Protein backbone atom coordinates (compact mmCIF):
# COMPACT_ATOMS: atom_id res chain seq x y z
CA UNK A 1 0.00 0.00 0.00
CA UNK A 2 1.49 3.29 -1.01
CA UNK A 3 0.11 6.62 0.05
CA UNK A 4 -1.38 7.17 -3.41
CA UNK A 5 -3.74 4.24 -2.83
CA UNK A 6 -5.46 6.27 -0.12
CA UNK A 7 -6.18 9.12 -2.52
CA UNK A 8 -9.73 7.89 -3.37
CA UNK A 9 -10.56 7.72 0.35
CA UNK A 10 -9.26 11.25 0.86
CA UNK A 11 -11.23 12.50 -2.12
CA UNK A 12 -14.36 10.74 -0.84
CA UNK A 13 -13.92 12.41 2.56
CA UNK A 14 -13.47 15.84 0.96
CA UNK A 15 -16.57 15.34 -1.21
CA UNK A 16 -18.56 14.19 1.83
CA UNK A 17 -17.54 17.14 3.99
CA UNK A 18 -18.04 19.53 1.08
CA UNK A 19 -21.50 18.19 0.32
CA UNK A 20 -22.68 18.43 3.92
CA UNK A 21 -21.36 21.92 4.56
CA UNK A 22 -22.36 23.07 1.06
CA UNK A 23 -25.96 21.95 1.51
CA UNK A 24 -26.21 23.71 4.86
CA UNK A 25 -24.65 26.88 3.47
CA UNK A 26 -26.95 26.97 0.44
CA UNK A 27 -30.13 26.44 2.47
CA UNK A 28 -28.97 29.12 4.96
CA UNK A 29 -28.33 31.55 2.06
CA UNK A 30 -31.35 31.04 -0.19
CA UNK A 31 -34.07 30.27 2.40
CA UNK A 32 -36.31 33.28 3.20
CA UNK A 33 -36.13 34.11 6.89
CA UNK A 34 -39.30 35.89 8.10
CA UNK A 35 -39.90 34.89 11.74
CA UNK A 36 -43.28 35.44 13.40
CA UNK A 37 -44.52 34.44 16.88
CA UNK A 38 -46.56 31.56 15.44
CA UNK A 39 -43.57 30.17 13.63
CA UNK A 40 -41.38 30.32 16.74
CA UNK A 41 -43.95 28.45 18.85
CA UNK A 42 -43.01 24.85 19.75
CA UNK A 43 -45.69 23.51 17.41
CA UNK A 44 -47.32 25.41 14.63
CA UNK A 45 -50.58 23.51 15.08
CA UNK A 46 -52.70 22.52 18.05
CA UNK A 47 -53.44 24.33 21.28
CA UNK A 48 -50.76 26.46 22.89
CA UNK A 49 -49.63 24.63 26.07
CA UNK A 50 -50.87 26.41 29.19
CA UNK A 51 -48.43 24.81 31.61
CA UNK A 52 -45.45 22.51 31.72
CA UNK A 53 -46.49 18.87 31.63
CA UNK A 54 -44.53 18.25 34.82
CA UNK A 55 -45.61 14.68 35.39
CA UNK A 56 -43.58 12.89 38.02
CA UNK A 57 -43.62 9.14 37.83
CA UNK A 58 -41.94 6.66 40.16
CA UNK A 59 -38.51 5.47 39.14
CA UNK A 60 -39.81 1.92 39.55
CA UNK A 61 -41.12 2.14 36.00
CA UNK A 62 -37.55 1.72 34.83
CA UNK A 63 -37.26 -1.56 36.66
CA UNK A 64 -40.54 -2.82 35.27
CA UNK A 65 -39.59 -1.70 31.76
CA UNK A 66 -36.21 -3.38 32.11
CA UNK A 67 -37.79 -6.63 33.27
CA UNK A 68 -40.21 -6.42 30.38
CA UNK A 69 -37.37 -6.10 27.88
CA UNK A 70 -35.52 -9.03 29.44
CA UNK A 71 -38.52 -11.34 29.20
CA UNK A 72 -39.37 -10.03 25.76
CA UNK A 73 -35.94 -11.08 24.55
CA UNK A 74 -36.31 -14.39 26.35
CA UNK A 75 -39.44 -15.04 24.31
CA UNK A 76 -37.57 -14.43 21.06
CA UNK A 77 -34.99 -17.04 22.01
CA UNK A 78 -37.67 -19.45 23.18
CA UNK A 79 -39.47 -19.04 19.87
CA UNK A 80 -36.37 -19.84 17.86
CA UNK A 81 -35.89 -22.99 19.90
CA UNK A 82 -39.55 -24.01 19.94
CA UNK A 83 -40.01 -24.21 16.16
CA UNK A 84 -37.28 -26.86 15.96
CA UNK A 85 -37.33 -28.33 19.45
CA UNK A 86 -37.53 -31.93 18.25
CA UNK A 87 -34.29 -31.57 16.34
CA UNK A 88 -32.40 -30.37 19.40
CA UNK A 89 -33.56 -33.21 21.62
CA UNK A 90 -32.80 -33.36 25.33
CA UNK A 91 -29.69 -31.25 24.91
CA UNK A 92 -31.84 -28.45 23.58
CA UNK A 93 -34.31 -28.78 26.42
CA UNK A 94 -31.49 -28.71 28.94
CA UNK A 95 -29.91 -25.69 27.30
CA UNK A 96 -33.12 -23.71 27.11
CA UNK A 97 -33.91 -24.84 30.67
CA UNK A 98 -30.65 -23.34 31.91
CA UNK A 99 -31.43 -20.16 29.98
CA UNK A 100 -34.92 -19.84 31.45
CA UNK A 101 -33.68 -20.75 34.92
CA UNK A 102 -31.16 -17.91 34.78
CA UNK A 103 -33.91 -15.44 33.97
CA UNK A 104 -36.27 -16.85 36.60
CA UNK A 105 -33.45 -16.48 39.09
CA UNK A 106 -33.17 -12.81 38.09
CA UNK A 107 -36.89 -12.31 38.55
CA UNK A 108 -36.78 -14.04 41.93
CA UNK A 109 -33.93 -11.82 43.06
CA UNK A 110 -35.52 -8.50 42.08
CA UNK A 111 -38.82 -9.69 43.54
CA UNK A 112 -37.15 -10.45 46.86
CA UNK A 113 -35.34 -7.11 46.77
CA UNK A 114 -38.70 -5.36 46.42
CA UNK A 115 -38.60 -4.18 42.83
CA UNK A 116 -42.13 -5.45 42.16
CA UNK A 117 -43.52 -4.04 45.40
CA UNK A 118 -46.12 -1.42 44.58
CA UNK A 119 -48.01 -1.06 47.83
CA UNK A 120 -48.17 1.95 50.10
CA UNK A 121 -46.05 0.55 52.91
CA UNK A 122 -43.26 0.08 50.46
CA UNK A 123 -43.70 3.56 49.08
CA UNK A 124 -43.13 4.90 52.57
CA UNK A 125 -39.99 2.84 52.83
CA UNK A 126 -38.95 4.20 49.47
CA UNK A 127 -39.38 7.75 50.70
CA UNK A 128 -37.32 6.95 53.76
CA UNK A 129 -34.52 5.55 51.61
CA UNK A 130 -34.60 8.67 49.45
CA UNK A 131 -34.39 10.85 52.56
CA UNK A 132 -31.41 8.87 53.83
CA UNK A 133 -29.77 9.15 50.47
CA UNK A 134 -30.21 12.92 50.45
CA UNK A 135 -28.83 13.16 53.98
CA UNK A 136 -25.75 11.26 52.94
CA UNK A 137 -25.32 13.39 49.85
CA UNK A 138 -25.58 16.61 51.88
Amino acid at each position, binding site marked *: *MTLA*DYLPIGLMMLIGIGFATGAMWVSWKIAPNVPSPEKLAPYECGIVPLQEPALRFPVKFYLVAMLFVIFDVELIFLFAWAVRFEAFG*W*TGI*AAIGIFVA*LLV*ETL*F*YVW*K*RGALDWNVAHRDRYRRVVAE*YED*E*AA
Partner: protein
Amino acid sequence: MGNIAFLPIGLEVALLVGAIGVLMVAVTMGRSSRDWAVVAGAAIGVGFVISVRQWVVVGESGTQLAFGTKGADGLAVANQMVAMDKFGALGGMILMVVVGLALIGSWQMVKDLGSRGAEFVALILLSAAGMHMMIVSANLIMLFIGLETASIALYVIAGFLRNRRGSDESAMKYFLMGSFASALFIYGVALVFAATGSTSLYGSTSIGQFLAGNAMPNPGILLIGIGLILVGLAFKMSAAPFHQWAPDVYQGAGTGAVAFMSTGVKVAAVAAMVRVLYIGFFQFYDDWSMAVALIAALSILVGTATAIAQSDLKRMLAYSGVAHAGFLLIAVLAARVSLDAMWFYLATYAVSLVGMLTVVTVVAGASAGPVSIESFRGLGKRSPMLAAAIAVFMFSMAGIPGTSGFVAKLVVFTAADLSGFRWLVVLALVASVAGLFFYLRIIVVAFFEDSDTEETPLTLTGPRIAIGFAVAVTVGLGLWPTLLLDFAREALPHL
Protein backbone atom coordinates in the same frame (compact mmCIF):
# COMPACT_ATOMS: atom_id res chain seq x y z
CA MET B 1 -26.52 -33.91 27.76
CA GLY B 2 -23.83 -36.46 27.19
CA ASN B 3 -22.33 -34.71 24.24
CA ILE B 4 -21.38 -31.41 25.83
CA ALA B 5 -17.83 -31.11 27.10
CA PHE B 6 -18.10 -29.33 30.42
CA LEU B 7 -14.49 -29.26 31.54
CA PRO B 8 -13.36 -26.54 29.06
CA ILE B 9 -16.07 -24.17 30.28
CA GLY B 10 -16.01 -25.46 33.84
CA LEU B 11 -14.44 -22.35 35.30
CA GLU B 12 -17.08 -20.07 33.78
CA VAL B 13 -19.85 -22.39 34.99
CA ALA B 14 -18.39 -22.45 38.51
CA LEU B 15 -18.19 -18.66 38.68
CA LEU B 16 -21.69 -18.22 37.24
CA VAL B 17 -23.17 -20.68 39.73
CA GLY B 18 -21.22 -18.90 42.46
CA ALA B 19 -22.60 -15.50 41.42
CA ILE B 20 -26.17 -16.81 41.37
CA GLY B 21 -25.54 -18.56 44.67
CA VAL B 22 -24.37 -15.35 46.34
CA LEU B 23 -27.48 -13.49 45.16
CA MET B 24 -29.83 -16.30 46.18
CA VAL B 25 -28.22 -16.68 49.57
CA ALA B 26 -28.46 -12.93 50.09
CA VAL B 27 -32.21 -12.76 49.51
CA THR B 28 -33.24 -16.02 51.17
CA MET B 29 -31.12 -17.44 53.97
CA GLY B 30 -28.11 -15.44 54.99
CA ARG B 31 -28.05 -11.69 55.00
CA SER B 32 -24.63 -11.49 56.61
CA SER B 33 -21.59 -11.00 54.43
CA ARG B 34 -20.00 -14.07 56.03
CA ASP B 35 -22.45 -16.34 54.17
CA TRP B 36 -21.69 -14.66 50.85
CA ALA B 37 -17.97 -15.06 51.51
CA VAL B 38 -18.43 -18.82 51.89
CA VAL B 39 -20.29 -19.10 48.56
CA ALA B 40 -17.94 -16.80 46.65
CA GLY B 41 -14.88 -18.46 48.16
CA ALA B 42 -16.22 -21.89 47.21
CA ALA B 43 -16.84 -20.74 43.61
CA ILE B 44 -13.33 -19.31 43.29
CA GLY B 45 -11.82 -22.41 44.89
CA VAL B 46 -13.73 -24.72 42.55
CA GLY B 47 -12.68 -22.50 39.63
CA PHE B 48 -9.03 -22.87 40.63
CA VAL B 49 -9.37 -26.64 41.00
CA ILE B 50 -11.02 -26.85 37.56
CA SER B 51 -8.13 -24.86 36.06
CA VAL B 52 -5.66 -27.28 37.64
CA ARG B 53 -7.72 -30.20 36.34
CA GLN B 54 -7.69 -28.66 32.84
CA TRP B 55 -3.91 -28.36 33.07
CA VAL B 56 -3.59 -32.04 34.04
CA VAL B 57 -6.02 -33.26 31.37
CA VAL B 58 -4.30 -31.21 28.67
CA GLY B 59 -0.96 -32.60 29.83
CA GLU B 60 -2.27 -36.14 29.46
CA SER B 61 -4.35 -36.00 26.31
CA GLY B 62 -3.36 -32.77 24.56
CA THR B 63 -5.23 -29.57 23.83
CA GLN B 64 -8.74 -29.64 22.46
CA LEU B 65 -11.45 -27.40 21.13
CA ALA B 66 -14.82 -27.62 22.72
CA PHE B 67 -18.14 -26.03 23.47
CA GLY B 68 -19.83 -27.58 20.54
CA THR B 69 -21.10 -31.01 19.72
CA LYS B 70 -18.98 -34.07 20.21
CA GLY B 71 -18.63 -36.53 17.40
CA ALA B 72 -18.80 -40.32 17.69
CA ASP B 73 -15.11 -40.49 18.54
CA GLY B 74 -15.65 -38.27 21.54
CA LEU B 75 -13.89 -35.25 20.04
CA ALA B 76 -15.48 -31.92 19.38
CA VAL B 77 -16.48 -31.59 15.75
CA ALA B 78 -18.45 -28.41 15.26
CA ASN B 79 -18.93 -24.91 16.59
CA GLN B 80 -15.66 -24.88 18.42
CA MET B 81 -15.93 -21.76 20.49
CA VAL B 82 -13.60 -22.54 23.37
CA ALA B 83 -10.07 -23.90 23.41
CA MET B 84 -8.92 -26.00 26.31
CA ASP B 85 -5.15 -25.65 26.63
CA LYS B 86 -2.53 -24.91 29.25
CA PHE B 87 -2.67 -21.28 28.11
CA GLY B 88 -6.25 -20.96 29.34
CA ALA B 89 -5.62 -23.14 32.38
CA LEU B 90 -2.73 -21.01 33.64
CA GLY B 91 -4.74 -17.87 32.85
CA GLY B 92 -7.58 -19.30 34.93
CA MET B 93 -5.30 -20.05 37.86
CA ILE B 94 -3.79 -16.53 37.81
CA LEU B 95 -7.24 -14.97 37.52
CA MET B 96 -8.63 -17.01 40.40
CA VAL B 97 -5.69 -16.05 42.63
CA VAL B 98 -6.13 -12.38 41.72
CA VAL B 99 -9.91 -12.41 42.25
CA GLY B 100 -9.52 -14.26 45.53
CA LEU B 101 -6.87 -11.86 46.80
CA ALA B 102 -8.84 -8.80 45.69
CA LEU B 103 -12.02 -10.03 47.40
CA ILE B 104 -10.24 -10.99 50.62
CA GLY B 105 -8.41 -7.67 50.71
CA SER B 106 -11.44 -5.51 50.01
CA TRP B 107 -14.06 -7.43 51.95
CA GLN B 108 -14.52 -4.40 54.19
CA MET B 109 -16.03 -2.59 51.19
CA VAL B 110 -18.56 -5.42 50.76
CA LYS B 111 -19.51 -4.99 54.42
CA ASP B 112 -19.77 -1.21 54.02
CA LEU B 113 -22.20 -1.68 51.14
CA GLY B 114 -24.72 -3.49 53.35
CA SER B 115 -27.37 -5.43 51.49
CA ARG B 116 -25.92 -4.33 48.13
CA GLY B 117 -22.66 -6.06 48.95
CA ALA B 118 -23.97 -9.34 47.54
CA GLU B 119 -24.48 -7.71 44.16
CA PHE B 120 -20.92 -6.39 44.27
CA VAL B 121 -19.54 -9.87 44.93
CA ALA B 122 -21.75 -11.43 42.25
CA LEU B 123 -20.66 -8.85 39.67
CA ILE B 124 -16.99 -9.47 40.43
CA LEU B 125 -17.50 -13.22 39.93
CA LEU B 126 -19.38 -12.65 36.64
CA SER B 127 -16.72 -10.23 35.46
CA ALA B 128 -14.02 -12.79 36.24
CA ALA B 129 -15.96 -15.39 34.24
CA GLY B 130 -16.03 -13.00 31.27
CA MET B 131 -12.29 -12.37 31.63
CA HIS B 132 -11.50 -16.06 31.55
CA MET B 133 -13.77 -16.46 28.54
CA MET B 134 -11.63 -13.84 26.78
CA ILE B 135 -8.54 -15.96 27.42
CA VAL B 136 -9.99 -19.28 26.24
CA SER B 137 -12.22 -18.14 23.38
CA ALA B 138 -11.38 -19.76 20.05
CA ASN B 139 -13.58 -17.39 18.08
CA LEU B 140 -13.58 -13.61 17.82
CA ILE B 141 -17.33 -13.43 18.51
CA MET B 142 -16.86 -15.47 21.68
CA LEU B 143 -14.00 -13.16 22.62
CA PHE B 144 -16.32 -10.19 22.20
CA ILE B 145 -18.96 -11.78 24.43
CA GLY B 146 -16.35 -12.41 27.10
CA LEU B 147 -15.07 -8.85 26.75
CA GLU B 148 -18.56 -7.43 27.17
CA THR B 149 -19.42 -9.70 30.12
CA ALA B 150 -16.26 -8.55 31.86
CA SER B 151 -16.66 -4.89 30.93
CA ILE B 152 -20.35 -4.37 31.69
CA ALA B 153 -19.88 -5.86 35.14
CA LEU B 154 -16.88 -3.59 35.65
CA TYR B 155 -18.83 -0.45 34.66
CA VAL B 156 -21.34 -1.22 37.42
CA ILE B 157 -18.60 -2.09 39.91
CA ALA B 158 -16.90 1.26 39.20
CA GLY B 159 -20.10 3.14 40.09
CA PHE B 160 -21.07 1.10 43.09
CA LEU B 161 -20.57 3.81 45.70
CA ARG B 162 -23.40 5.80 44.20
CA ASN B 163 -23.72 8.28 47.06
CA ARG B 164 -20.34 9.71 46.09
CA ARG B 165 -20.26 11.89 43.04
CA GLY B 166 -16.80 10.75 41.97
CA SER B 167 -18.02 7.19 41.75
CA ASP B 168 -20.85 8.15 39.36
CA GLU B 169 -18.41 10.10 37.25
CA SER B 170 -16.04 7.17 37.22
CA ALA B 171 -18.71 4.72 36.09
CA MET B 172 -20.08 7.08 33.44
CA LYS B 173 -16.66 7.78 31.92
CA TYR B 174 -15.74 4.12 31.97
CA PHE B 175 -19.05 3.14 30.40
CA LEU B 176 -19.02 5.71 27.58
CA MET B 177 -15.40 5.18 26.60
CA GLY B 178 -15.58 1.45 27.17
CA SER B 179 -18.62 0.99 24.96
CA PHE B 180 -16.85 3.05 22.29
CA ALA B 181 -13.86 0.70 22.51
CA SER B 182 -16.16 -2.33 22.36
CA ALA B 183 -17.81 -0.91 19.26
CA LEU B 184 -14.41 -0.44 17.63
CA PHE B 185 -13.49 -4.00 18.53
CA ILE B 186 -16.60 -5.54 17.01
CA TYR B 187 -16.20 -3.34 13.93
CA GLY B 188 -12.70 -4.76 13.60
CA VAL B 189 -14.13 -8.29 13.85
CA ALA B 190 -16.64 -7.43 11.12
CA LEU B 191 -13.88 -6.13 8.83
CA VAL B 192 -11.79 -9.23 9.46
CA PHE B 193 -14.82 -11.32 8.58
CA ALA B 194 -15.29 -9.28 5.43
CA ALA B 195 -11.69 -9.88 4.42
CA THR B 196 -11.33 -13.56 5.33
CA GLY B 197 -14.87 -14.94 5.65
CA SER B 198 -14.25 -16.26 9.14
CA THR B 199 -14.21 -15.22 12.77
CA SER B 200 -12.78 -18.51 13.98
CA LEU B 201 -9.20 -18.80 15.21
CA TYR B 202 -8.97 -22.58 14.80
CA GLY B 203 -10.17 -25.32 12.49
CA SER B 204 -10.30 -25.79 8.76
CA THR B 205 -12.35 -22.63 8.17
CA SER B 206 -10.28 -20.37 10.41
CA ILE B 207 -8.77 -16.98 9.64
CA GLY B 208 -5.28 -18.46 9.76
CA GLN B 209 -6.16 -21.20 7.24
CA PHE B 210 -7.66 -18.66 4.87
CA LEU B 211 -4.62 -16.41 5.09
CA ALA B 212 -2.28 -19.37 4.59
CA GLY B 213 -4.16 -20.50 1.48
CA ASN B 214 -4.85 -17.15 -0.15
CA ALA B 215 -2.32 -14.48 -0.97
CA MET B 216 -3.77 -11.03 -0.30
CA PRO B 217 -2.36 -8.39 -2.62
CA ASN B 218 -4.54 -5.69 -1.05
CA PRO B 219 -5.01 -6.48 2.62
CA GLY B 220 -6.31 -3.00 3.50
CA ILE B 221 -9.62 -4.12 5.03
CA LEU B 222 -7.95 -6.89 6.98
CA LEU B 223 -5.29 -4.54 8.35
CA ILE B 224 -7.90 -2.03 9.46
CA GLY B 225 -9.75 -4.89 11.14
CA ILE B 226 -6.64 -6.07 12.97
CA GLY B 227 -5.94 -2.48 13.99
CA LEU B 228 -9.42 -1.98 15.44
CA ILE B 229 -9.25 -5.28 17.35
CA LEU B 230 -5.91 -4.11 18.70
CA VAL B 231 -7.45 -0.79 19.78
CA GLY B 232 -10.30 -2.54 21.59
CA LEU B 233 -7.95 -4.76 23.59
CA ALA B 234 -5.42 -1.98 24.21
CA PHE B 235 -8.23 0.11 25.67
CA LYS B 236 -9.09 -2.63 28.15
CA MET B 237 -5.50 -2.91 29.31
CA SER B 238 -5.24 0.92 29.45
CA ALA B 239 -2.35 1.26 27.01
CA ALA B 240 -1.61 4.75 25.70
CA PRO B 241 -3.15 6.49 23.79
CA PHE B 242 -6.30 4.66 24.98
CA HIS B 243 -5.61 5.16 28.67
CA GLN B 244 -7.39 8.43 29.53
CA TRP B 245 -10.19 6.67 31.39
CA ALA B 246 -7.93 4.80 33.80
CA PRO B 247 -6.86 7.55 36.26
CA ASP B 248 -10.37 8.96 36.64
CA VAL B 249 -11.97 5.55 37.00
CA TYR B 250 -9.41 4.32 39.53
CA GLN B 251 -9.66 7.54 41.52
CA GLY B 252 -13.46 7.59 41.60
CA ALA B 253 -14.20 3.94 42.22
CA GLY B 254 -13.84 2.43 45.66
CA THR B 255 -10.32 1.17 46.31
CA GLY B 256 -11.62 -2.32 46.95
CA ALA B 257 -13.11 -2.39 43.45
CA VAL B 258 -9.95 -1.00 41.83
CA ALA B 259 -7.85 -3.90 43.13
CA PHE B 260 -9.88 -6.25 40.96
CA MET B 261 -10.61 -4.11 37.93
CA SER B 262 -7.05 -2.91 37.41
CA THR B 263 -5.49 -6.38 37.43
CA GLY B 264 -7.99 -8.91 36.14
CA VAL B 265 -8.85 -7.13 32.93
CA LYS B 266 -5.16 -6.64 32.15
CA VAL B 267 -4.48 -10.35 32.49
CA ALA B 268 -7.44 -11.14 30.24
CA ALA B 269 -6.72 -8.52 27.58
CA VAL B 270 -3.01 -9.37 27.26
CA ALA B 271 -3.63 -13.11 27.06
CA ALA B 272 -6.46 -12.64 24.55
CA MET B 273 -4.26 -10.34 22.46
CA VAL B 274 -1.52 -12.96 22.28
CA ARG B 275 -3.95 -15.65 21.18
CA VAL B 276 -5.69 -13.49 18.58
CA LEU B 277 -2.56 -11.98 17.07
CA TYR B 278 -0.41 -15.12 16.98
CA ILE B 279 -3.05 -17.72 16.16
CA GLY B 280 -5.30 -15.59 13.98
CA PHE B 281 -3.00 -13.19 12.17
CA PHE B 282 0.48 -14.68 12.31
CA GLN B 283 0.95 -14.16 8.55
CA PHE B 284 0.73 -10.43 9.19
CA TYR B 285 3.27 -10.41 12.02
CA ASP B 286 5.38 -7.71 10.34
CA ASP B 287 2.38 -5.40 10.11
CA TRP B 288 0.88 -5.69 13.59
CA SER B 289 4.14 -6.10 15.48
CA MET B 290 5.12 -2.55 14.51
CA ALA B 291 1.74 -1.23 15.71
CA VAL B 292 2.07 -3.11 19.01
CA ALA B 293 5.63 -1.84 19.42
CA LEU B 294 4.55 1.76 18.88
CA ILE B 295 1.66 1.45 21.37
CA ALA B 296 4.10 -0.12 23.84
CA ALA B 297 6.64 2.68 23.42
CA LEU B 298 3.98 5.37 23.76
CA SER B 299 2.47 3.69 26.84
CA ILE B 300 5.83 3.46 28.58
CA LEU B 301 6.69 7.09 27.82
CA VAL B 302 3.28 8.57 28.66
CA GLY B 303 2.74 6.38 31.73
CA THR B 304 6.13 7.10 33.25
CA ALA B 305 6.15 10.81 32.46
CA THR B 306 2.64 11.41 33.83
CA ALA B 307 2.98 9.24 36.92
CA ILE B 308 5.81 11.48 38.15
CA ALA B 309 3.45 14.46 38.41
CA GLN B 310 0.68 12.74 40.40
CA SER B 311 -0.13 13.59 43.99
CA ASP B 312 -2.96 11.06 44.29
CA LEU B 313 -1.78 7.53 44.92
CA LYS B 314 -4.52 5.86 42.88
CA ARG B 315 -3.86 8.15 39.90
CA MET B 316 -0.17 7.40 40.26
CA LEU B 317 -0.89 3.65 40.23
CA ALA B 318 -3.17 4.15 37.20
CA TYR B 319 -0.41 5.87 35.22
CA SER B 320 2.13 3.33 36.41
CA GLY B 321 -0.41 0.78 35.12
CA VAL B 322 -0.23 2.49 31.72
CA ALA B 323 3.54 2.09 31.76
CA HIS B 324 3.16 -1.53 32.81
CA ALA B 325 0.69 -2.05 29.96
CA GLY B 326 3.55 -0.95 27.73
CA PHE B 327 5.89 -3.51 29.30
CA LEU B 328 3.19 -6.15 28.86
CA LEU B 329 2.88 -5.24 25.18
CA ILE B 330 6.63 -5.79 24.88
CA ALA B 331 5.92 -9.19 26.41
CA VAL B 332 3.27 -9.73 23.71
CA LEU B 333 5.93 -9.07 21.07
CA ALA B 334 8.38 -11.28 22.94
CA ALA B 335 5.83 -14.10 22.96
CA ARG B 336 7.21 -15.01 19.55
CA VAL B 337 10.32 -16.25 21.33
CA SER B 338 8.93 -17.31 24.68
CA LEU B 339 5.58 -17.16 26.37
CA ASP B 340 6.83 -17.68 29.91
CA ALA B 341 8.02 -14.06 30.07
CA MET B 342 4.50 -12.78 29.44
CA TRP B 343 2.92 -15.09 32.02
CA PHE B 344 5.56 -14.27 34.61
CA TYR B 345 5.12 -10.54 34.11
CA LEU B 346 1.32 -10.79 34.22
CA ALA B 347 1.20 -12.93 37.35
CA THR B 348 3.77 -10.99 39.35
CA TYR B 349 2.51 -7.55 38.37
CA ALA B 350 -1.10 -8.51 39.14
CA VAL B 351 -0.21 -9.91 42.56
CA SER B 352 1.97 -6.91 43.48
CA LEU B 353 -0.72 -4.45 42.39
CA VAL B 354 -3.47 -6.24 44.30
CA GLY B 355 -1.22 -6.28 47.36
CA MET B 356 -0.44 -2.57 46.99
CA LEU B 357 -4.11 -1.64 46.61
CA THR B 358 -4.96 -3.78 49.63
CA VAL B 359 -2.49 -1.69 51.63
CA VAL B 360 -4.28 1.38 50.31
CA THR B 361 -7.65 -0.01 51.50
CA VAL B 362 -6.15 -0.53 54.95
CA VAL B 363 -4.60 2.92 55.21
CA ALA B 364 -7.30 5.01 53.54
CA GLY B 365 -10.42 2.85 53.83
CA ALA B 366 -11.87 0.30 51.45
CA SER B 367 -14.55 2.66 50.13
CA ALA B 368 -12.30 5.69 49.72
CA GLY B 369 -12.19 7.65 46.49
CA PRO B 370 -9.15 9.89 46.07
CA VAL B 371 -6.18 8.84 48.24
CA SER B 372 -3.47 11.43 48.66
CA ILE B 373 0.10 10.23 48.89
CA GLU B 374 0.34 12.42 52.00
CA SER B 375 -1.89 9.98 53.87
CA PHE B 376 1.03 7.56 53.89
CA ARG B 377 3.27 9.94 55.85
CA GLY B 378 5.00 8.38 58.80
CA LEU B 379 3.59 4.96 58.10
CA GLY B 380 6.98 3.48 58.88
CA LYS B 381 6.54 4.55 62.51
CA ARG B 382 2.80 4.01 62.74
CA SER B 383 2.73 0.57 61.20
CA PRO B 384 6.15 -0.83 60.24
CA MET B 385 4.72 -4.00 58.72
CA LEU B 386 2.45 -2.14 56.29
CA ALA B 387 5.25 0.21 55.34
CA ALA B 388 7.55 -2.75 54.72
CA ALA B 389 4.88 -4.31 52.49
CA ILE B 390 4.63 -1.05 50.53
CA ALA B 391 8.40 -1.07 50.10
CA VAL B 392 8.31 -4.63 48.72
CA PHE B 393 5.51 -3.85 46.24
CA MET B 394 7.08 -0.59 45.08
CA PHE B 395 10.51 -2.23 44.66
CA SER B 396 8.83 -4.97 42.65
CA MET B 397 7.00 -2.54 40.35
CA ALA B 398 10.18 -0.52 39.89
CA GLY B 399 12.14 -3.69 39.13
CA ILE B 400 14.69 -3.81 41.94
CA PRO B 401 16.60 -7.12 42.14
CA GLY B 402 15.37 -9.52 44.79
CA THR B 403 11.73 -8.95 43.88
CA SER B 404 9.63 -10.64 41.24
CA GLY B 405 9.36 -7.39 39.26
CA PHE B 406 13.09 -7.51 38.47
CA VAL B 407 12.92 -11.04 37.10
CA ALA B 408 9.78 -10.19 35.15
CA LYS B 409 11.47 -7.24 33.44
CA LEU B 410 14.62 -9.28 32.89
CA VAL B 411 12.88 -12.16 31.10
CA VAL B 412 10.62 -9.86 29.08
CA PHE B 413 13.46 -7.61 27.91
CA THR B 414 15.67 -10.59 27.08
CA ALA B 415 12.93 -12.21 25.01
CA ALA B 416 12.06 -8.92 23.30
CA ASP B 417 15.72 -8.40 22.41
CA LEU B 418 15.82 -11.88 20.88
CA SER B 419 12.74 -11.10 18.78
CA GLY B 420 14.46 -8.05 17.33
CA PHE B 421 13.10 -5.08 19.29
CA ARG B 422 16.31 -3.76 20.77
CA TRP B 423 15.25 -0.09 20.43
CA LEU B 424 12.13 -0.84 22.46
CA VAL B 425 14.16 -2.57 25.15
CA VAL B 426 16.52 0.40 25.42
CA LEU B 427 13.57 2.77 25.73
CA ALA B 428 11.92 0.56 28.35
CA LEU B 429 15.13 0.38 30.37
CA VAL B 430 15.49 4.16 30.41
CA ALA B 431 11.84 4.52 31.43
CA SER B 432 12.30 1.95 34.20
CA VAL B 433 15.03 4.09 35.70
CA ALA B 434 12.81 7.17 35.49
CA GLY B 435 10.01 5.14 37.08
CA LEU B 436 12.16 4.64 40.17
CA PHE B 437 11.45 8.26 41.05
CA PHE B 438 7.76 7.89 41.76
CA TYR B 439 7.92 4.39 43.20
CA LEU B 440 10.64 5.39 45.65
CA ARG B 441 8.78 8.61 46.53
CA ILE B 442 6.03 6.56 48.20
CA ILE B 443 8.66 4.72 50.25
CA VAL B 444 10.33 8.03 51.18
CA VAL B 445 6.99 9.48 52.27
CA ALA B 446 6.18 6.38 54.30
CA PHE B 447 9.53 6.06 56.05
CA PHE B 448 11.22 9.45 56.20
CA GLU B 449 8.42 11.98 56.67
CA ASP B 450 6.66 12.55 59.97
CA SER B 451 2.91 12.49 60.17
CA ASP B 452 0.61 14.68 62.23
CA THR B 453 -1.31 11.71 63.58
CA GLU B 454 -0.11 8.83 65.67
CA GLU B 455 -3.04 6.78 64.46
CA THR B 456 -2.19 3.19 63.58
CA PRO B 457 -4.18 1.82 60.63
CA LEU B 458 -6.28 -1.12 61.74
CA THR B 459 -5.36 -4.23 59.80
CA LEU B 460 -8.11 -6.81 59.75
CA THR B 461 -7.48 -10.49 59.19
CA GLY B 462 -8.61 -10.44 55.55
CA PRO B 463 -6.28 -7.71 54.30
CA ARG B 464 -3.51 -9.17 56.45
CA ILE B 465 -3.81 -12.52 54.65
CA ALA B 466 -3.98 -10.83 51.21
CA ILE B 467 -0.98 -8.58 51.86
CA GLY B 468 1.01 -11.40 53.42
CA PHE B 469 0.35 -13.68 50.47
CA ALA B 470 1.21 -10.94 47.96
CA VAL B 471 4.49 -10.15 49.77
CA ALA B 472 5.36 -13.84 49.92
CA VAL B 473 4.72 -14.28 46.20
CA THR B 474 6.58 -11.10 45.26
CA VAL B 475 9.69 -11.98 47.27
CA GLY B 476 9.47 -15.73 46.67
CA LEU B 477 9.24 -15.46 42.89
CA GLY B 478 11.98 -12.83 42.99
CA LEU B 479 14.34 -15.31 44.63
CA TRP B 480 13.15 -18.52 42.99
CA PRO B 481 11.63 -17.41 39.65
CA THR B 482 11.93 -20.88 38.12
CA LEU B 483 9.00 -21.98 40.30
CA LEU B 484 6.68 -20.13 37.95
CA LEU B 485 8.86 -19.88 34.83
CA ASP B 486 9.17 -23.65 34.37
CA PHE B 487 5.45 -23.94 34.85
CA ALA B 488 4.65 -21.08 32.46
CA ARG B 489 6.92 -22.39 29.73
CA GLU B 490 4.38 -25.14 29.06
CA ALA B 491 1.39 -22.78 28.99
CA LEU B 492 1.09 -22.63 25.22
CA PRO B 493 -2.13 -22.00 23.36
CA HIS B 494 -3.78 -24.64 21.19
CA LEU B 495 -2.26 -24.49 17.72
